[in-house]
């Protein structure tokens, strides 16, 4: 008999596949057309326990490890990348609370992560990739902190109820606090009108004199940079998984179509030009899978995984865009039509060349890691 862990993984992925096929995948095209997920969708996702996949059992979650969690998002993304990215944003945030939060903060916050979405917010209008350029602040007043600032481009911004926010606690000191949408002074700003991942809200929060106690500080004062980097690393593994799912979807569309159609009297499957494109899509998908699973494995084993996570996302995002482009070309006119999801998969994949650190920034990180070896 397989081990309990393997058996649980199999059951989880089976359940994820079932739920994706019946409940998530059918919403993919409508979400893209409507620019949002339908009413009730998140509640069903919540009721089915998806928010707690990686949350430890002591907090009411399922407690699946990094490898299985990433695989679950990979499977979801086969049917709907937006939903997978929403969960990615939630999971990476939980991960930081688990890594840096005090036991008291974890006990206070995490049980609610089963039915409330969490988000991690760093970016401000002044620039996404330069943390010290932010202007949000937490200032000490008496025995508590007062937070002011404006965060944008937050994955799940507007949807999430709990936010980890990167703020300055001194001119050169970055720290992370946890705020809740119910706190006085908290409000939502505008939602971005993005070209892809339409089922994942991305938006703004405004913090106007939010008062929190010390217990809402994540990690120590000055840990903001480390926590932000860690959130990026965790997100990038999951994005590699999402991108793998997108490419599996693209590959299926390409092969299904090629098996059905002819160019003149020749089946598309007999054309070398099809072979080349399909093989390239398959190789891109498989390399991305190996990269994200390798990073997840290192993470599970407690080893460094920052560079590998960056590779999964940097490679996977361009790979998925290219694979989408090849799929579009195989489908030709149909590929260019909104009736088929190809063009929207390309738009979805394109987001991940930017989100959680641009591919340019990741290449710098990978190169720096190599120079330092």
């Amino acid at each position, binding site marked *: *008999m397989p081990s309990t862990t393997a058996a649980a993984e199999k059951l*989880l992925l089976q359940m994820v596949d*079932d739920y994706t096929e019946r409940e998530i995948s059918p919403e993919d095209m409508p979400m893209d057309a409507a620019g949002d997920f339908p009413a009730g969708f998140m509640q069903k996702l919540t009721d089915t*326990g998806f928010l707690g996949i990686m949350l430890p059992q002591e907090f009411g979650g*399922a*407690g699946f490890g990094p490898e299985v969690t990433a695989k679950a998002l990979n499977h979801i993304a086969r049917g709907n990348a937006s939903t997978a990215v929403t969960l990615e944003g939630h999971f990476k945030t939980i991960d930081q609370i688990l890594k840096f939060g005090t036991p008291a903060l974890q006990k206070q916050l995490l049980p609610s992560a089963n039915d409330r979405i969490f988000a991690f917010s760093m970016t401000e209008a002044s620039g996404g990739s330069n943390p010290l350029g932010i202007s949000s602040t937490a200032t000490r007043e008496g025995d508590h902190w007062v937070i002011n600032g404006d965060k944008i481009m937050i994955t799940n911004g507007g949807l999430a109820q709990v936010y980890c926010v990167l703020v300055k606690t001194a001119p050169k000191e970055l720290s992370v606090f946890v705020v809740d949408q119910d706190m006085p002074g908290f409000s939502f700003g505008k939602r971005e009108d993005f070209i892809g991942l339409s089922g994942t809200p991305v938006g703004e929060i405004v913090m106007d004199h939010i008062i929190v106690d010390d217990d809402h500080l994540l990690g120590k004062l000055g840990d903001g940079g480390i926590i932000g980097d860690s959130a990026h690393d965790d997100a990038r593994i999951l994005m590699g998984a999402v991108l793998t799912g997108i490419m599996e979807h693209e590959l299926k569309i390409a092969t299904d179509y090629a098996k059905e159609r002819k160019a003149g009297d020749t089946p598309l499957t007999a054309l070398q030009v099809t072979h080349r494109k399909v093989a390239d899509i398959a190789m891109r998908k498989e390399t991305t899978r190996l990269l994200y699973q390798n990073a997840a494995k290192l993470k599970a084993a407690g080893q460094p995984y920052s560079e590998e996570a960056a590779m999964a996302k940097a490679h996977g995002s361009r790979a998925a865009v290219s694979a989408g482009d090849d799929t579009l070309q195989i489908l030709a006119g149909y590929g260019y039509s909104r009736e088929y999801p190809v063009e929207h998969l390309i738009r979805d994949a394109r987001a991940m060349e930017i989100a959680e650190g641009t591919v340019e920034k990741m290449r710098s990180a990978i190169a720096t890691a190599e120079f330092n070896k």
Partner: protein
Amino acid sequence: MKIVVCIKQVPETNNVTIDPVTHNLDRRGLAGVMNPFDKNAIELALHLKDTATEDVQVALLTMGPDDYAESLREGMAMGADTGYLLSDRAFAGADTLATGYVIAQALKKIGDADLILFGRQAVDADTGQVGPIVAEFLHQPQITYAASLRLSGKNEVTAERLLEDTKQTLVAQLPAVVSVRSELNTPRYPTPRNIQLSFDKPLTVWHHDDLDLDDSRLGQAGSPTIVTKVYAPKPVKRELTPLTGTPSEAASQLIKALKGRQLI
């Protein structure tokens, strides 16, 4: 109240092929999953558990190789309390009769089941026979293909049964055997957490010696039916009967033909 749901594990798809040399079914690489219709039976049991005023214990029962434990776990992840796996080489090769016998003997050992539930049929063999066979062996009344079922009194259930063009309302004093239609409900998904927790629930494996069995009624030897030939059906190109003449003449030919086929 005790409910036992009898389930089966089936190949994940019905796309099986025939080995051209041995003429045996080639099921290599086909993972097993719980028979989808059985999930409706489990859902019914769990719904009764959720809504009844009394305590309801839901047990799952299956017969098959060790890997059938996966389906028991899945059912326990949905919310069933316990699982029983009847696993022994002696049970292999059983047809519906020999299967029904072992299941009935196991139900006697479990004891005191108020309600014994089955899915409408297994998607692989498509017989739906084991439920009624078990009911007969246990001398219990049966309600097959129930479209709805509720507890309507102490030890009493009321069910609707849909025949092809008739709806029956039946009232049964428990214990009884019920098989359910898939339209009855939408099975819940096992939540990720309950998947993990299901591994802490008791799963009992019974082998040959754990049950009171007459060996002559087991496995292949205890199965009256023999499969003599297995083949893939050739896609039959239909025999086209042309309708000819004016539209009116052709229409009358069609009406006659459809009447012959009892379609109108």
